[in-house]
């Protein structure tokens, strides 16, 4: 078994007279991620991931609703460190379909897998952005008027997504796309539905929730309307964003500032 315990590793640092075996184990735990983080390692990790992990987690590691395998490109709910990711891959998650990798798989391969999983997310400490986040914060509430629709830490409107932790899940490039071309990728939650009821009246609003038998929309005045699908005449889906593009209304440097501000929005740990 190649399980590595973080707490054990910390104890070993203070108990320096322990056997060489344990000192070596400590070295693997602390250095494993650092030893296997080259582009070559990431590529090998990706290769192994595609073969062994993608069936459940998806070829793009974004998870699978049918198997219940989680998205690995955002926050990892079960592991916040390299060692924890390593241990989950090595030992699995008990009583779930997340099985351990075979004993014959080397630690090096597992570390390469860790390197690949890490490569799917940004380490904010390593990102150097052109913009100024303080200027971006001012733009967010003043010229950009973003807070009329978006909430950050409890302040702002309800019509758009809450952006309090947007920096944890979205890359600066994708933030730029969202600001300049909001129609490029619109999550289903933010589609617009035009629903005509039995009374012939048509209402339009955000697709707050839809299932096989019912649908709920929120109009521009924040009114929530709920419909049974067997009691409506028609339903039209508009897979575009209601957010305006800021490509013309903000300068390039202002957009950089806004990106820097939004990328800084993350939960303090």
């Amino acid at each position, binding site marked *: 078994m190649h399980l590595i315990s973080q707490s054990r590793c910390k104890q070993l640092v203070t108990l320096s007279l322990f056997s060489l075996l344990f000192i070596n184990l400590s070295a693997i735990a602390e250095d494993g991620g650092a030893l296997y983080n080259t582009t070559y390692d990431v590529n090998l990790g990706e*290769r192994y991931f*595609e*073969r*062994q992990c*993608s*069936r*459940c987690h*998806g*070829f*793009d590691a974004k998870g699978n*609703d*049918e*198997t*219940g395998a989680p998205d690995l490109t955002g926050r990892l709910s079960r592991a916040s460190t390299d060692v924890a990711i390593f241990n989950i891959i090595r030992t*699995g998650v008990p*009583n*779930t*379909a997340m*099985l*351990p990798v*075979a*004993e014959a798989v080397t630690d090096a391969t597992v570390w390469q897998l860790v390197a690949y999983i890490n490569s799917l997310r940004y380490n904010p400490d390593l990102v150097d952005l052109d913009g100024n986040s303080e200027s971006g914060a001012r733009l967010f509430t003043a010229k950009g008027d973003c807070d009329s629709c978006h909430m950050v830490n409890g302040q702002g409107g309800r019509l758009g997504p809450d952006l309090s932790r947007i920096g944890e899940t979205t890359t600066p490039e994708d933030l730029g796309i969202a600001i300049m071309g909001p129609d490029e990728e619109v*999550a*289903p939650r933010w589609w617009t539905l035009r629903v005509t009821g039995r009374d012939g009246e048509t209402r339009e609003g955000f697709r707050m929730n*839809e*299932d*096989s*038998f019912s649908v709920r929309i929120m109009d521009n005045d924040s009114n929530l309307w709920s419909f049974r699908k*067997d009691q409506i005449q028609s339903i039209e889906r508009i*897979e575009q964003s209601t957010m305006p593009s800021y490509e013309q209304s903000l300068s390039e440097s202002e957009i950089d500032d806004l990106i820097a501000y939004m990328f800084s929005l993350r939960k303090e740990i």
Partner: protein
Amino acid sequence: MKRLTILLSLVVFNPVFAAEDPFETVMTPAFSPITWERLLNAGDEPENWLMYSGTLDAQRYSQLDEINTLNVTEMELKWAYQIPVIDRAETVPLVVDGIMFITEAPSNLVAVDAQTGRQYWRYDHDLPEDLRICCGRNNRGVAILGETLFMSTLDAHLVAIDARTGNVLWDVEVAAYDSGYSKTAAPLIVKDKVVTGIAGGEFGIRGFIDAYNAETGELEWRTYTIPGEGEPGNDTWSGDSWKTGGSATWITGAYDPDLNMIYWGTGNPGPDWNGDVRLGDNLYSDSALALNGDTGELEWYFQFTPHDVHDWDAIQVPILADINYQGQERKVMMWANRNAFFYTIDRETGVFLEGKPFATQTWAQGLDANGRPVRVPGMEPTYEGIMVSPPITGGTNWYSPGYSQQTGLFYVTAFDGEQIFFKRDEDYEEGERFTGGGGRYDQPMDAFHSSIRAINPTTAEIEWEFPILPRSSAGITSTAGGLLFTGSADGYFFALDAATGEELWHISLGRRVHAAPMTYSVEGKQFVTIASGNVVYTFGLKE
């Protein structure tokens, strides 16, 4: 202290102590043993649900009509059984004289009172930690003969369990789990044998269908789904690729007693998405096989997707019916395939009769006169990725379709989607995945569509459809009450008018429905059971 040591060593080392079930075993009430005669005529005792698909023809059609189109709105929850191991339930329970047998993930079995859901006994199968499973910890059900239940397990065993007590009668290894084999499907009883398939198509196995002596557990026959060296069809695999070609058999088949033929579907050739290493048609992957009911010898085959490179297993339950086709009574088999085409096939000969797409597809221009697909060029997976419809999960998948003797319609859960398919180069390593690529959606799931579709088997035309949110993986059951029961990905269980597709009743169960419904009655009262999430729910009419 010495006594304590001896006691401890007894507990640790004595296999009898170690194997003892920690649960108190409670016997079920007595029931009349399920003879082969009763299984042959299972449709005539609709109060029971005696096999995975209800009857040997796998129609999933019940003669019960207490619950019908006029009173289905009066259905209410009667009881719920919470499966203790958190996972997803794909089980279809059996009911025998008021006793229900429910399989659970990963490979457990429980007997409960079918009127109350209260437990009689349970069997927990010990599993190794290093299982090789493709797609979750599933078990879909058991078979019964006499007073014995037969269950597949994830470590590729077949276990015979006393239905009265839950005690193990025999336990045989069907194949080595650490080579990539596993078992998830309910076996099928044919006469005095337990016929069962194998999973592992993503691990470079060589698939087969087995028959075991129900009394002893001895292997009676094995029919490989990939011909061996020197056998007809082996030359449809380049080089040695037949040895690792998959063609698994991971869903339950059907049986025609008049023709004495077993019908069973086979899975994808392996590696799934890289066909370069297995040139040829790759027989008998992605096929319907007709086997002799006594010997397992191949009578005929029909290959739906020759040289499949998209993982479109023919792992669907074959539905058998006698229908009037172009003025003649024909014994047919109906099949909505993962490749998005529906087929009506003569089940005596394997001759293709009708076939049309029932879901969105871009890979074939159509079917030729023999039912062989006419491919659209350039739809094979590439290193860069290529968009193809249907996606890997198919136009449908393993979820049971249904057929109503009242309407003459075939019902299937269909998915209109597309996916980017990738090819990768891989070497086979025993016990490791051997897939050669994968797929990725480039749109959110809500951008696609799912429907329950009713197909006329004489024309292969869609008669009606009922849209649901994608991507449902629920099976379908219809009844003499004019009803069709099924579920959806967003956790609904609902009833449609089987003739028109009109929605008559629905209830939100809160979690995805991954299983097929079944129906039974106790003391004259009809019940309908469905698994959703981790719970088995049973409904009946208000008192």
